[in-house]
């Protein structure tokens, strides 16, 4: 078995003439926290979507968790996403008419079986034990993002993807969310890939890669961690 949870070779994604991601070779060891930085339009989301099985590359190879994503069908990718990946978006994307706990249970439902006690426990872990029955509109931005985290980790994913999860949060909420993620990773030992604009947020990771115009231009290892 490869020591890498993610392995890409010449991974490409183009939209017609636009090359959103130029041939990329990337290896992510299991358990690593990888930060992805770059200007707007540099291909960060494109990379996340490919790795998370939400999008298909136009070239190259892509192995995630030993699975060749190029070989999977539409439903195979859906299964891969629910079993293997937890996703946190910048715009929380919670279902507005479901309560916090129902939003978490929905992920359980698509994965296997809703389990209210487990969903409650997940929300308690992100510090929302008192907000179970509130709908997203009644929660602050930071709280909504924590519901998203609870939803992302509920099925014990091996890979947690965050596409600018703190992009809409103030400083205090950002710190809270990052600390929460760090704590959860300590317990669950999932691999994290996090897109961010913020140097401080990137610094929470083990390694940072910089994309520019769809190309990996720089890579740095954090030694302070």
């Amino acid at each position, binding site marked *: 078995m490869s020591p890498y949870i993610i392995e890409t070779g010449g991974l490409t994604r183009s939209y017609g003439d636009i090359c959103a991601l130029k041939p990329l070779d990337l290896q992510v060891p299991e358990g690593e926290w990888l930060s992805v930085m770059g200007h707007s339009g540099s291909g960060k989301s494109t990379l996340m979507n490919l790795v998370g099985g*939400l999008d298909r590359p136009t070239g190259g190879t892509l192995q995630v968790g030993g699975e060749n994503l190029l070989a999977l069908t539409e439903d195979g990718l859906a299964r891969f996403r629910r079993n293997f990946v937890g996703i946190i978006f910048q715009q929380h994307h919670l279902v507005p*008419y479901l309560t916090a706990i129902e939003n978490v249970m929905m992920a359980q439902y*698509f994965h296997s079986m809703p389990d209210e006690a487990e969903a409650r426990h997940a929300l308690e872990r992100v510090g929302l034990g008192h907000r179970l029955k509130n709908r997203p509109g009644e929660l602050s931005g930071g709280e909504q993002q924590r519901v998203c985290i609870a939803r992302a980790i509920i099925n014990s994913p091996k890979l947690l993807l965050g596409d600018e999860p703190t992009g809409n949060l103030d400083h205090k909420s950002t710190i809270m969310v990052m600390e929460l993620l760090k704590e959860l990773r300590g317990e669950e030992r999932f691999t994290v890939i996090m897109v961010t604009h913020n140097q401080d947020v990137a610094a929470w990771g083990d390694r940072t890669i910089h994309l520019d115009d769809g190309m990996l231009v720089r890579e740095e290892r954090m030694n302070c961690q």
Partner: protein
Amino acid sequence: MLFRLLKNSFLKRPKSVLLVFISIVMGASVATAFLGISGEISHKMALELRSYGANILLEPSAVEGGGFLREDDLPKIKTVFWKYNITGFTPYLFGVADFSANGKRERGIVSGTWFAKNLEVAGEEPSVQGVRGIAPWWDVQGGWPAGPDEAIVGAALAKRLGSAIGGHVEATVRGKQQRFQVVGIVTTGGYEEEQLFAPLITTQELLQLPGKVSRVQVSALTVPMDAFGMKNPAQMTKEEYEKWYCTAYVTSVAKNVEEVMAGSRAKPIWQIASAEGSLLKKLNSLMLLLTILALVASAMAVSTSLMASMAERSPEIALMKAIGADRYQISAIFIGETLIISVIGGMVGYLLGDQLAGIISRTVFNSTIASPFWLFPTAIISAFVVAFAGSVAPLRRALSIEPVRVLKG
């Protein structure tokens, strides 16, 4: 969970759900109403058509009966299996007679019949049988015979004899004489205009054939012949024969009547029976077509409103896909919603449609109808058909949503 998803998704979009619901109710109620009254319409239509003449003719079979049927057997026609389908019958006894009136002599047919006979059969509703009932198109000037020596004369014969209402006609058969008072002149456009119609009993005496009848015309409500009805009953299996006997084909009703009339052979009068059958068939297909059109229109309305709500729903569907819902799970949500709306829509549609059928039948036919037991399942099934047919395109749209495109950022 699915239930919670559905409940909340309904509550979230009451307008769009209501629109879909109304479309389904419309489809189901129109289908219910149409199908509910189609039986009624067919029945009324068949009754109307009965006025074009008898559709079964009973004659003595060549082998037995000595050329005549027995008048005493006639009441048995009211006791047969298909008695409720028999709307009327009348016997005839024919004989050649020499008529004389106003000094003119003419040879012609004397025809004894029932005009409007009160028939009482033990155990059955009393009824009135005779020519007046089964041949309503006869145009009689003057009146109908009431007494034993009253007669109506065919227009052509009356002309030749110079007979007029109130006059007399002398009929002579093999030396036996009978004097009839002419109470009416009948115009039919057919062979009847050459005959003199007198009460059966008087004619039997004149012809010296007591209790005898030459033929019987029977008017019966029947169902259109189909391929099965055309099969030869003699070659049917027991089950097939049973089914054939219990279907009101003109042939099986004829068979039924034949069995009670000693020495008779019953045959459908095909030009009447088949014209009637094809008319009824056309009417039924027309009703079916209208029903299908109504259902198609509702399905299109359902499709349109579901499509319209798709724009609003696509982020939610994209999200479900992003967190791992596959096509079956997305479909399950859609089908679940559709199922709930269509069950409720079907029930409401049934209630409305049943009312509608009642109103139509009251205003158009002046009658009330009892809705048949199959109307409820029919309403539910039409609601399903409408809902599912209307969901196909929106569901395909939902399944084709690409989460990355919708969940940008």
